[in-house]
């Protein structure tokens, strides 16, 4: 079965081909390039599944395919493939979501008669291709390149409706905010390359392994260039630099502001961005180089706290939003906060588990929202909806499944994964790292809010009486909308059983499939989850602590608390927004609502940073540049112009003058020789 790996590059190449086809020939194709994209992503999905099966059977792949800078240089820059359990599973998720989004786009874009479809499908293809290539990158530099391509494509897609006022501005914002984070990432990549001489993720030659050797007190320290810092300090700096890119892409506080605005893009694009590609890229990068982060307790604590804080912070804003996509946007930020929290607290498997379930249910929720938006003739205000459940049966059921998963209600997928995230935070917090308990508390508070805003969204959208004419008689949707919704709806309900840890703890059955899978793979790659567990234990001092005398009790207590809180939030929302004509309860919050509606004035302060501070600074720099730097350059040129003009007068064209000069110079020369040589 190793032959499958030879075709692995095609996973990313196929969507790239569809990008080229849609770009060049999309105009002449019956569905404007959609079919090319669907076929390509279906091919990618098939290949990804083949790769996943191969990896599941114990084969992995870590090869450099192409060296574009090599030979007599300090470090080689290469392209290569790393296919281990993590990337194989991620490939399947990404290609599955991309495939469903392509199908859904038929309903959302083609059936709605949008223009510019070849451009849309071309961007979508490139987006998928770059994300897939990012996932199977075997080194940090290649990952960075495709990371940037992902950012570029999201810019193209968010600004797809470039003739309206909002989208271009939102696209620019997304591009600039993520690019701000990526600056740090780029510096981090260069730092990793100069420090370790390699940017490989896996294996004994990979930089996480090298860093481990350096930090291990038992081995003699290898010589790596740490620029005069203590190795641990320097590695923490590198980790934080790379983390900058992660926080930008994964919309972690304070770089989250681009994500709600990105809702200006077409809804299928939002689904793709939020579930599988753009935002997932950030956390996936942390998981990919977890062997490096696991060595750095400070960075792990930062990740955990940023994650926990973002989870809570975004959830509070989601509570008051009126547009369905805005609520979903803040829930995305919040959920990625959970994933970061899991990574920061040593829950590598929990993070990937939540990434998986979130990809499914968030794609589902966005596609469901897209279906609602089609039905509502592109009105996104939830207060204009209501009563849609009778008109749109499939959408309602699927959306409900996704919502319950998001809220973390047993037994939907979100419950299992969110519970495991919180469990990891709790046990590592109890086991000697009390700081993590703070992050855990924030995550727990966010559970309540998540339950509240999710149920509020569902009630306002689908229940009660129709509150507008369009909601009375919604626009129907076709199979190409319903099919992805149905697939994802079923998945969102059952995918949690990939890894139902509480069941395993209670019954002793070996049902923690994801744990086993991520733990498999050859030891030589050093990417298995138990290796990461050892690292966090040895270097970050994470150990498992319990309450009530056992892991099972701790787990059940944690799960009970989070489920209780989720149910409490959901119940509160249900109580408040039940009825046929729900009232706007959030208005009772008064000033707090204003604060939340304005997103804590995050945008305002960032605009101030840009306009009040940066613009002035750059204005001063511009003055300096124009005045001093250009002044010197212009001065030099005018001096030489002037002196050249004057010296030119020497060339009179009159032979006599030349002769006189020659004679004069001869005299001077002779005089000098006479004086030096002592002729007299």
């Amino acid at each position, binding site marked *: 079965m190793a032959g499958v790996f030879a075709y692995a590059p095609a996973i990313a190449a196929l969507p790239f081909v569809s990008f080229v086809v849609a770009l060049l020939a999309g105009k002449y194709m019956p569905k404007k390039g959609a079919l090319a994209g669907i076929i390509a992503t279906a091919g990618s999905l098939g290949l990804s599944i083949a790769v996943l099966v191969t990896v599941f059977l114990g084969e992995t792949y870590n090869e450099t395919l192409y060296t574009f800078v090599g030979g007599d240089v300090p470090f080689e820059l290469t392209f290569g493939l790393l296919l281990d359990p993590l990337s194989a599973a991620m490939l399947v998720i990404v290609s599955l979501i991309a495939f469903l989004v392509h199908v859904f786009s038929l309903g959302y874009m083609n059936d709605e008669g949008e223009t510019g479809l070849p451009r849309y499908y071309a961007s979508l293809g490139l987006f998928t291709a770059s994300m897939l290539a990012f996932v199977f990158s075997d080194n940090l530099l290649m990952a960075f390149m495709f990371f940037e391509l992902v950012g570029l494509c999201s810019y193209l897609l968010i600004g797809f409706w470039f003739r309206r006022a909002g989208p271009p501005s939102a696209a620019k914002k997304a591009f600039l905010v993520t690019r701000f984070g990526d600056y740090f990432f780029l510096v981090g990549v260069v730092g990793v390359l100069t420090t370790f001489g390699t940017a490989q993720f896996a294996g004994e030659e990979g930089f996480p392994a090298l860093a481990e050797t350096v930090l291990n007190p038992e081995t003699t320290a290898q010589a790596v260039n740490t620029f005069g810092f203590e190795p641990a300090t320097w590695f923490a700096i590198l980790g934080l630099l790379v983390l900058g890119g992660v926080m930008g892409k994964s919309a972690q506080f304070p770089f989250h502001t681009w994500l709600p605005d990105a809702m200006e893009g077409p809804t299928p694009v939002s689904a793709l961005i939020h579930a599988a590609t753009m935002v997932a890229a950030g956390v996936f990068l942390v998981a990919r180089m977890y062997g490096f982060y696991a060595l750095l307790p400070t960075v792990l604590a930062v990740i955990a706290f940023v994650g926990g804080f973002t989870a809570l912070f975004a959830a509070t804003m989601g509570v008051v939003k009126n547009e369905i996509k805005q609520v979903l946007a803040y829930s995305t930020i919040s959920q990625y906060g959970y994933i970061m929290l899991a990574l920061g607290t040593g829950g590598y498997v929990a993070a990937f588990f939540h990434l998986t379930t979130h990809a499914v249910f968030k794609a589902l929720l966005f596609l469901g929202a897209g279906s609602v938006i089609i039905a509502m003739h592109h009105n996104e205000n939830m207060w204009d909806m209501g009563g849609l459940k009778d008109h749109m049966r499939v959408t309602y059921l699927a959306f409900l499944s996704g919502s319950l998963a998001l809220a973390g209600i047993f037994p939907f997928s979100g419950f299992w994964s969110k519970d495991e995230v919180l469990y990891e935070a709790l046990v590592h917090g109890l086991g000697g790292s009390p700081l993590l308990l703070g992050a855990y508390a924030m995550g727990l508070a966010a559970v309540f809010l998540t339950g509240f805003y999710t149920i509020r969204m569902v009630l306002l959208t689908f229940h009660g009486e129709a509150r507008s004419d369009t909601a009375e008689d919604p626009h129907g949707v076709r199979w190409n909308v319903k099919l992805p919704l149905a697939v994802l709806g079923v998945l969102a309900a059952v995918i949690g059983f990939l890894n139902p840890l509480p069941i395993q703890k209670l019954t002793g059955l070996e049902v923690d499939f994801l744990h086993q899978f991520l733990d498999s793979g050859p030891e030589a790659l050093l990417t298995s989850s138990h290796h990461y567990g050892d690292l966090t234990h040895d270097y970050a001092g994470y150990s498992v602590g319990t309450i009530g005398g056992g892991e099972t009790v701790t787990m059940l207590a944690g799960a009970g608390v989070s489920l209780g809180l989720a149910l409490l939030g959901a119940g509160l929302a249900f109580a408040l927004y039940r009825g046929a004509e729900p009232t706007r309860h959030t208005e009772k919050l008064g000033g707090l609502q204003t604060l939340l509606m304005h997103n804590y004035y995050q945008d305002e302060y960032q605009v101030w940073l840009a306009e009040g501070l940066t613009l002035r600074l750059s204005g001063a720099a511009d003055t300096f540049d124009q005045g001093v730097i250009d002044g010197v350059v212009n001065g030099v040129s005018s001096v030489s112009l002037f002196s050249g003009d004057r010296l030119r007068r020497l060339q009179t064209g009159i032979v*006599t003058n030349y002769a*006189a000069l020659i*004679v*004069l110079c*001869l*005299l001077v020369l*002779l*005089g000098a020789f*006479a004086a030096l040589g002592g*002729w*007299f």
Partner: protein
Amino acid sequence: MTTRPQLHTETSKAAGILAVALFGFLAAVFLTSGFGTATGFAEGSITRSIGYAMFNLDAGDFASEGFLVSFITIAIVLDAALDGAVMLAKRDEEGDS
């Protein structure tokens, strides 16, 4: 009108000072340096020796290098110069004012 070349005499003599100064300098240098006595030529015909030297013949009263190649070269140069002078001096055959 007849355009015969006219000799200008009303020119600045200031530059001439340079020539005078050069002469003064050179003369001062030469007169202050001692050359000693000259070797001179022994008895014999210098002119005949030059003639033989020109043709690389070793029959003169004084031994010398041969100058045949230089002689021929100078001859060609003179010839070329004459041709050049004639060409420059010749008016263009057609359409010349």
